């Protein structure tokens, strides 16, 4: 008998709000988190847009600054979101020891990109040490300077699993800890892993999360040069990200952390936790195609959706709303649309479709977690948040345009798809007691 998995806590730090309620309100009210990009070390404006977390005070985590200093931005965002999720699920403060033993964490993270400011002193010192007539800093000169000029704990900010490690320490959880790096769909896989750990009986409670921060110039530069990121400074920032639109010009790179507390149903009932929703399906797939271009038919995503919905026609769950992973890169949006279309036709369903990335930008490894949180809120409030900037849709789905749509949502699907050909799908529904 398979265990039932429910959701008992949520936490979010996002470009449109630094907790779950303000995040959700912004989505429903169609408030964009996109702004023109500003340089890291000066007041200069840069020729693109980003979706940054605003007015975030790492001090709210309640840790001394010497500890915060050894964390990268992703770890700080994650700790704040995990603290909120922990509070909501009743995992903070006086949680008993045996629960902490049976609680684990899986975080989907992206590459922890370096800031320019971390290199400036080293490069300056290397430059000054170069022999006359030379202006090329080679490995030797860089190394010599770095050994004295870099922040001694520099590495700790950039080791991906430190995000899960810091969170585990903060919440004192001692079960399995894992860090998933599956590109834009990472959080989908973190949720899938967490579900498995509970189903196998190796934990009762799991924090499943996604976090990423790609809003500094080094990380945004690469997306611009690869043609994935919207360029410019002159347009109204809220209008530049157009998932599913024929004229989409790329994504807007962003940052966020999203956390879901997953729990075995009986365990949640017995300790009197508030059950927000139930997970009724989860599936994954891979394109087996190109690392950085999608399979034109969205093969991996089709597979993820069919794995999620299952093949047993009798028991099929019908999602009334789909939170789609379109982000504004035309080839990925087209492949996503193809996969959704084939899947919807195969199951004979016509769900409402929305793309929150029009408001949130692309928060990469965090994106799926944010959509999953939005889907839980949508189920509870019976409202689907809108997609903005969609004037010329590439497909004829029942899109929720510009304004939220109120409708009963017994079940919702979240899809994730991106680099590496990784795809994931999650089905959630209201929990029947």
């Amino acid at each position, binding site marked *: 008998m398979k265990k039932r998995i429910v959701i008992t806590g949520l936490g979010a730090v996002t470009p449109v709000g630094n907790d779950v309620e303000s995040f959700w309100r912004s989505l429903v009210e169609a408030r964009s988190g996109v702004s023109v990009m500003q340089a890291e070390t000066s007041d*200069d*404006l840069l020729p693109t847009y980003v979706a940054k977390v605003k007015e975030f005070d790492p001090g709210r985590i309640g840790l001394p600054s010497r500890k915060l200093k*050894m964390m990268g931005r992703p770890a700080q965002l994650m700790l704040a979101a995990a603290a909120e999720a922990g509070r909501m699920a009743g995992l903070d403060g006086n949680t008993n020891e045996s629960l902490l033993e049976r609680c*684990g964490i899986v975080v989907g993270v992206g*590459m922890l*990109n370096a800031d*320019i400011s971390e*290199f*400036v002193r080293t*490069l*300056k010192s290397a*430059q000054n040490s170069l022999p006359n007539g030379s202006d*090329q800093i080679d*490995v030797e*000169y*860089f*190394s*010599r300077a*770095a*050994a004295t000029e870099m922040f001694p*704990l*520099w590495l*700790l900010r950039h*080791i*991906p*699993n*430190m995000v*899960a490690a810091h969170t*585990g*320490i903060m919440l*004192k959880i*001692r079960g399995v*800890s*894992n*860090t998933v*790096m*599956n*590109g834009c769909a990472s959080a989908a*896989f973190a949720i*899938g*892993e967490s579900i498995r750990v509970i189903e196998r009986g190796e934990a009762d409670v799991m924090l499943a999360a996604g976090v990423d921060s790609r809003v500094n110039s*080094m990380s945004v*530069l*690469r997306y*611009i*040069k*690869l*043609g994935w990121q919207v360029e410019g400074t002159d347009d109204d920032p809220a209008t530049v990200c157009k998932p599913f639109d024929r004229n989409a010009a790329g994504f807007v790179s962003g940052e966020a952390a999203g956390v879901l507390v997953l729990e075995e149903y009986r365990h949640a009932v017995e300790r009197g936790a508030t059950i927000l929703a139930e997970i009724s399906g989860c599936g*994954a*797939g*891979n*394109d*087996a*195609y190109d*690392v*950085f271009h999608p399979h034109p038919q969205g093969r991996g995503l089709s*597979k993820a959706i069919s794995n999620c919905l299952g093949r047993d026609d009798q028991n099929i769950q019908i999602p009334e709303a789909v939170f789609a992973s379109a982000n504004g890169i035309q080839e990925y949006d087209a492949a996503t649309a193809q996969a959704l279309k084939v899947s919807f036709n195969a199951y004979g369903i016509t769900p409402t479709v929305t793309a929150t990335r029009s408001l949130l930008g692309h928060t990469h490894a965090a994106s799926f977690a944010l959509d999953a949180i939005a889907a839980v809120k949508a189920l509870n409030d019976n409202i689907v948040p809108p997609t903005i900037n969609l004037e010329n849709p590439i497909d004829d789905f029942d899109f929720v345009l510009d304004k939220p749509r109120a409708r009963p949502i017994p079940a919702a699907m979240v899809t994730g798809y991106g*680099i*590496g*050909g990784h795809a994931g799908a999650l089905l959630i529904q209201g929990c029947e007691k």
Partner: protein
Amino acid sequence: MKKRVAVTGIGIVSPLGCSVDTFWQALSNGVSGVRSISQYNARGLPVRIAAEVTNFSPNGHFGKPYAFSSSLSMGFDRRTKFALAATEQALKDSKLNKDLLADANVYLGAGEGPNRVELISMLLAPLLKEDGTCDEPRLFTSPAAEEFALHDLLMEATVPASLIAKNYGICGEVMTSLSACAASSQAIGEAMRRIQNEECPIALAGGTHTMTAALDVIGFALLSALSPGNGDPKTASRPFDRNRDGFVLGEGAGMLILEEFEHAKKRGARIYAELIGYGASSDAYRVTDMHPDALGAVSAIDAALNDAAIDPKDIGYVNAHGTSTLENDRSETKALHTALGKYAPMIPVSSIKSMTGHAVAAAGVIEIIASILALNEQVLPPTINLETPDPECDLDYVPNKARATHFDVAMSNSFGFGGQNVALLVRKGELNG
């Protein structure tokens, strides 16, 4: 009823050799793979030794560059090539029909690719201003930007796994996890669970990493974690020796073909070994230190023993995490005493990191391969450089010379920086040949 999991193929790229035979020859002869760094000019580094892979010549297939677009292409980094080569070896070794791979899973513990500090310097140095800031707007027109962009993208942790999916047409679940030094052990454990629970009949599980590039060496040297390597490089890695002074960075890749036992038997596959136990935990203590009583390590070992339903007395050999740091050597010894009780002094323990250095995300798979080969050959690889035992490390560490023995079950420990602990148990295969 859980399915049994057989290991039917092995591939390895290591500082001790790039085939199973050369690797085992070196291990059983107590040969060190630690040398002066030769891949680049290391003169400016505070530490100038590492365990590099030296005799690696990828065939034409892996040597081909990746073409992102018609105008932008670049070769893959070392860790990606290592992973592709190890995978090809393992699949050949398993004699699996490649048509069976469509529904296989891939689970890699893989690090990000190596940074190129020359590229970072080329990009940023010309933009440095006198006041210590950086002319960021000019970054976007830098002539080095395109090369940096693709290089940065190809560094993503997911690249090796998704190329494997592409090369062999694997559309099942493809995962990359990066729980630091425990990553590939965790990958193998999770892949094992998928076969046990009938999610797939075949899984490719392993890991790849290269942590010998300049920025990696600088990062770990700044944390004072590395052996300065002042004497003969071959003697620098000396786990459990009183005169140890830190660990030695390494690199490599390993891949296992895991197969449902009956599936393997039916096709007459060579069964190297059976994976019988997996346990994982976290310390929730400090990101930089192990728990002084090694509670996390003990609970991972306990969980693995429970999982395999065996007793400590059934273990014939422990392949230690054994990094050659004072802290790890002592707390791992303590953990083995606690978890194995009165049997601990009788069970031989060795650390092959004395020869391979520390391959971080790839360490776990390289060590489980060593354990499997030890089972097959009934020979224990030694801990070399163990001349003056640390009085607080009082187990039988198989010092300096390989040892012939009779045993059926081996345990391999991996403890990740940040507090993730994994123990794997493996039993001799029933059908050899």
